[in-house]
């Protein structure tokens, strides 16, 4: 498989504050990359580079051979932890909005049969994420998990090349989180998505990803914490989702990783 996304010596700093340094990796289409690491280790910053809301200070981030744009585009779908859905639109309208933007340049709004068609397409995606029972509700009437399902449907209707998930389940209850994991894995397999997901839950990272990146600092200056940035310290290919990892083995790896990452947190 050819390279789909390439990180070429990427670094990012704000003034003297170095967040990321020397990120190198290649990702092929269809991979599910989970990004883990301690807070403040730059995994969310990296996602912003992918999203286009931040630019790398040096190095290149290539998507399908081309430099990634300076601003967000429909190529890259996003689900944030919060505020991903529009509170003034009902569930169907939230999802159909992506189609309305595309099909009505001037008003961003469709009428009559075109609107009906867009809403029906939205319904298909809402069914795919299991929200077909709440089509006419407003986001404030939905639970946190349902809102995240809605945000997924919104993103997927644009058929993005890359789906970015920024701690999408961080605010959810454990039970609901488990359902969401199944949903995301199902969608990933069914639609052959390329996914990048930031999480601070290591187990979640292992469970979902086909590849796991650990962000951490290689060098540390005890007197200036921001002197050196993080990089990808572990790049682990995980086993195929169809043959789940042996639970004990997973625990062993995660303990080891936790030890390395938490040790640094405590030492800071």
């Amino acid at each position, binding site marked *: 498989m050819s390279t789909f996304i390439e990180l070429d010596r990427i670094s990012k700093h704000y003034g003297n504050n170095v967040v990321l340094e020397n990120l190198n990796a290649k990702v092929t289409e269809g991979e599910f990359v989970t990004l883990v690491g301690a807070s403040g280790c730059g995994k969310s910053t990296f996602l912003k580079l992918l999203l286009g809301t931040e630019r790398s200070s040096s190095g290149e981030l290539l998507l399908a051979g081309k430099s990634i744009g300076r*601003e967000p585009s429909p190529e890259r779908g996003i689900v944030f932890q919060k*505020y*991903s859905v529009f509170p003034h639109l009902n569930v169907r309208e939230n999802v159909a909005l992506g189609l309305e*933007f595309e099909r009505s340049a001037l008003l961003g*709004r469709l009428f009559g049969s075109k609107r009906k068609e867009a809403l029906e397409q939205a319904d298909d995606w809402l069914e795919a994420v299991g929200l077909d029972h709440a089509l006419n509700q*407003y986001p*404030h*009437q939905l639970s946190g998990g349902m809102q995240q399902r809605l945000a997924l449907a919104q993103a997927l209707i644009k058929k993005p090349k890359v789906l970015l998930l920024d701690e999408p389940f961080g605010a959810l209850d454990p039970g609901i989180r488990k359902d969401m994991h199944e949903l995301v894995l199902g969608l990933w397999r069914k639609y052959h998505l390329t996914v990048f997901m930031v999480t601070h839950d290591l187990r979640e990272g292992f469970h979902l990803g086909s590849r796991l990146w650990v962000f951490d600092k290689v060098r540390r200056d005890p007197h200036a914490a921001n002197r050196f940035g993080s990089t990808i310290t572990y790049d682990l290919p995980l086993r195929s989702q169809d043959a789940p990892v042996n639970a004990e083995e997973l625990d062993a790896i995660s303990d080891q990783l936790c030890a390395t990452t938490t040790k640094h947190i405590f030492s800071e």
Partner: protein
Amino acid sequence: MLRLINFQPSRALKTALGIIPFLLILLGYQIGSDIRKAENEQDKLLPSFTEIADGIDRMAFQANKRSGEYLFWVDTKSSVIRLAKGISIAALIGLIIGLAAGSIPIIAAPLKPLVTVISLIPPLAILPVLFIAFGLGELSKVMLIVIGVSPFLIRDILQRTQELPREQLVKAQTLGGNSWQIILRVILPQTLPRLIDAVRLSLGAAWLFLIAAEAIASTDGLGYRIFLVRRYMSMDVILPYVVWITFLAFATDWCLLKLSRFVFPWYHADK
């Protein structure tokens, strides 16, 4: 014994406690009026409730002998029309400029300092300028309200627009929206209920400017009437007019709140 800070009055008690101050004011007024009337039957400062009722009857339910008009309603109509015009124009200005500046940084850059400075000009200080520029007709009165209220509305809408979660705007961009589409479909609809909030807050100021303008140069209107009958110490007309103005202000506020709740239920959901 509960701490006072934890004691919540029941609904009925709350209502009763809410009414009591009004009753006390009425009672105090009655007593004061009685005392003054006992000293001087012709006292005009605190007219009795009967005299006030007569005043209302004369102004609202009997045609004026000279003009044949029902002055109370003529005044109300003129004032309400001026206020509605002023507020509508100010709201439109506030929405358009506030929205544009709040969504587009390059528009905010030149406008923000300007609006801040303009909002600090006391509107009444430039009332003479308005009279000179727009004459003594309706326009200058409406303009006073517009000038008095719109800087506040612009600043408020600008700030509310910028308070929308950044994530929403990024999300809209990943859905393929361009600037115009995002303003139209994402920012504008969420700004409208906030505009209603801002208008509700500015109603008091709008009334102030209206009454000031009417007091200085007008031939009808609630403010005009109050200042006219002051010459005859007609408290029996002034007091009901003040109560009526208060009621109109309250009713407008209440209607706007109901309208907002009805049209934008999602906005009031988490409040």
